[in-house]
């Protein structure tokens, strides 16, 4: 049991948190032919866009309603309408996901009313899905934004269960923001190998995976098709990943009556085993040979790798679900969690992290804590690089944003293979700091080794 300690500083120095609207944008980017739209001043979009581009090394379709000081006072309905119509004309999206920013939320607007009016005025918007989600950045962080966006999409698009619905060998999957494109792709493969058809919401594995398309795309180049989201009630089961997905999962269950399994994550042998067992029960098929082999490989990796984790001290700073996942992983491999910092307190699992205390704070709390409590590895996103340099401790980059490395969408941590990858990656990082023994290391020991050996 850990105690949760809130940082009482009025200022955030080197923020750990990433804003809610950006979380919502990432979720919207997992929808096919989508364009996320921020309702706010153009800077909100520009900053988020640049950060996302640096992380994914991709063009990111993201637009703005370009509010100014006049429209903020008078109300942003016109800007909203103009933005929607311009996007429709220029880019022909199937889905427009609108996320609000602190500016318009502070001013306070009736978005639902506004959208209704806009639709009434423009009947040819009828076949385009426009979903609005409230995500002011003065509340919450990345996970909240993502989850709120998914909840909004489910609310708008999913057709509730009725006796007219036929069930298929279909599974709903609600991944959290802490799964990468590679994780989603691996999960799809696993589900399909049991003869089940996955409907993944949102699915960034084909839109943010980084690939070279045939033509230039102005909206997302892949992602969940809304037609499939509409028919989520046909599924036999729903798998949600991450505590922050509880809200959207609960909504989906209440609309469809489909039982839900919520996994905090699917990293580690136990979680991966549970996934396999669940899919096997749902499909009635036995677990494929391929995954049995992979499990055996994972065991081997755990055996080879645990030497490098045992006795090591680590410091982790991340969003709640990612923090819980990583803490459990490192702990189960034998490392000690000396420092744990979370961006928000929005997870009931924080108190279960195997560490003394969890600080709700920023990267300066992180750095200060590590100074008092030296560790062998820092684990956080790219903004931890300054601390890593100052402290001389290697940094394992996780989460979002990672802007000074490439291939981030393909960091696999899900399932047997993902866990194995993670073990090798980390063990090798520890190995880079191999210590070569010198006499000075043993200065304190009682044996006097400075004497000449008896036999030369």
């Amino acid at each position, binding site marked *: 049991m850990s105690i949760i300690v809130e940082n009482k*500083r*009025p*200022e*955030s*120095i*080197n*923020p750990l*948190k*990433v*804003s809610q*609207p*950006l979380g919502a944008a990432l979720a919207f980017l997992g929808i096919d032919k989508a364009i996320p*739209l921020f309702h*706010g*001043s*153009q*800077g*909100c*979009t*520009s*900053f*988020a*866009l*640049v*950060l996302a*581009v*640096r992380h994914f*090394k*991709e*063009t990111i379709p993201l*637009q*703005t*309603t*370009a*509010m*100014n*000081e006049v429209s*903020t006072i008078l109300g942003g309905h016109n800007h*909203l309408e*103009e*933005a*929607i*119509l*311009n996007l429709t004309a*220029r880019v022909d999206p199937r889905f427009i996901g609108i996320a609000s*920013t*602190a*500016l318009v939320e*502070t001013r306070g607007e009736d978005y639902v009313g506004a959208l209704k009016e806009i639709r009434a005025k423009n009947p040819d918007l009828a076949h385009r899905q426009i979903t609005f989600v409230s995500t*002011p*950045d*003065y*509340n919450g962080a990345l996970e909240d934004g993502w989850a709120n966006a998914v909840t909004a999409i489910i609310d708008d698009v999913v057709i509730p269960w009725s006796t007219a619905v036929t069930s298929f060998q279909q599974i709903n999957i609600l991944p959290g923001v802490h799964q990468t494109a590679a994780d989603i792709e691996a999960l799809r493969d696993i589900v399909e190998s049991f003869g089940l058809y996955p409907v993944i919401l949102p699915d960034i594995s084909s839109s943010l995976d980084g690939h*070279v*398309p045939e033509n*230039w795309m*102005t909206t997302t180049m892949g992602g969940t098709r809304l037609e499939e989201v509409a028919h989520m009630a046909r599924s036999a089961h729903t798998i949600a990943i991450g505590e922050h997905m509880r809200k959207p999962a609960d909504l989906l269950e209440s609309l469809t009556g489909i039982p839900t399994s919520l996994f905090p994550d699917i990293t580690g042998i136990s979680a991966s085993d549970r996934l396999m067992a669940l899919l096997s029960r749902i499909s009635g098929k036995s677990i494929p040979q391929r995954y049995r082999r992979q499990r055996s490989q994972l065991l081997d990796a755990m055996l080879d790798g645990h030497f490098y984790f045992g006795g090591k001290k680590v410091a982790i700073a991340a969003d709640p679900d990612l923090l819980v996942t990583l803490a459990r992983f490192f702990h189960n491999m034998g490392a000690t969690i000396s420092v744990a910092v979370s961006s928000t307190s929005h997870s009931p699992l924080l108190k279960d992290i195997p560490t003394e205390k969890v600080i709700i704070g920023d990267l300066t709390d992180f750095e200060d804590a590590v100074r008092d409590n030296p560790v062998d590895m820092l684990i956080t996103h790219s*903004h931890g690089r*300054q601390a890593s340099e100052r402290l001389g401790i290697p940094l394992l980059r996780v989460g979002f944003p990672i*802007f000074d490395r490439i291939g981030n969408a393909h960091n696999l941590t899900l399932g047997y293979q993902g866990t194995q990858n993670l073990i090798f990656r980390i063990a090798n990082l520890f190995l880079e700091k191999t210590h070569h023994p010198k006499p000075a290391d043993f200065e304190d020991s009682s044996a006097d080794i400075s004497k000449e050996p008896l036999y030369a």
Partner: protein
Amino acid sequence: MDNRLKAKVVSLFDEPACAKNVAKGKKERRKGCGKPLTPGATAGGCAFDGSKIVLQPITDAIHIVHGPLACEGNGWDSRQSASSGPTLYRNGITTDLTQMDIIMGTGEKRLYKAIRNAAERFNPPAIFVYVTCVPALIGDDVEAVCKHAAQKLGLPVIPVNSPGFIGTKNLGNKLAGETLLDHVIGTVEPDDSGDTDINIIGEYNLSGELWQIKPLLKQLGIRVHTCMTGDSRYRDIASAHRSRVNMMVCSAALINLARKMEERWGIPFFEGSFYGIEETSRSLRKIAELLVKRGASADLIAKTEALIAREEKRCWEKLEPYRQRLQGKRVFLYTGGVKSWSIVSALQQTGIEIVGTSVRKSTETDKEKIKKLMGSDAHMIEKIPPREIYNRLKSDEADIMLSGGRTQFIALKAKIPWVDINQERHKAYAGYDGILALVQDIDCALSNPVWQEIRQPAPWEEGWSSPEIDSLFDDDHLFSERAS
């Protein structure tokens, strides 16, 4: 917008030193520099972004953003503005306003405490406080808080009143310039002041570019008192009013700053650039000329000419081997302002053909220069949507594209080599050495064998063939064996 800010913005839109501005009618001038923003079709940064770009590189100052998380949270530590010493400027500090602060109006108190804590923890010579949309909307009196903090804490606490929603990045640049004029420049006397001291305005030392230029100036005995604001120290900016000459780079974004420094302290300024060989030489000459006019020793001119002759010769010699390799290679330039023409001439003289350059962010003077260099209007491109660029590149209209990080994917997805020449780049391209580095990078990108493999068809596409595999299934071969 509060009245004082409104008045300030209006005054900025009336700039006698800017040719484009002078040519406008009174009504048009009031509308400002850029075109009005189109909802759903805009991609630029805001006024807050612009102000931060100008001031953040002040290395030993503390920069606090007053607002909710995203403004600072999404943008900090993203530019490669390098420092030869202090790294305080790389910290991202924000009051991270919560919903409670906004509802209860406790933002000002929070800001004061943040300033006080930062002063204690970092002990900086000054603190800059940036206003963002939300506090501007709810009427937080940031100026008053700063004044109070300055008094109580005994150090300059400077409000930067440029909330995002009042305009574009460019407006923010200008407001930052005004902030320096109103609060910083002239507040401190320099320890020493020489007759060859200059300031460089609009230089942010990206990837160390200032350090490519400084040695040249040092050889001439010219001292860069400070840049605004690359690798700068607060005190040096505060004492910049005693320098003799101002050089303004980066296409007049800070022209208000340069002009007012001339008005107040008689410091002449000129617009120049260190991108490209001719431009570097021209700028050195101009600096020398103006310094001598202001009382520096006359032999500076001869010294400068000797240096220019030497450096140009050395540079052309080094570029010669690349002339053969790059002869006739076609470059598409998609960048703004000064770079749209300054590298053109150097590249052209290396035999590279410029098939197009974007002038969407260029001033009239920029465009004139381009016309002179490239002959006709045909190659100047105003605004071109990404899909258009992609199609042109795919139809083999250029061999390589030079642009900023955000547009790299257009070239890469079209399977065309790309070199980064914008502010987020990691290479220094200033001065004589810089153009050599750029040409080397272009050569390296073009000659990388990876492009052959990237462009070859996939096995399921037309045009793919493999003689080894074909021969395994060659029927004639089978028959001939059976027959014999």
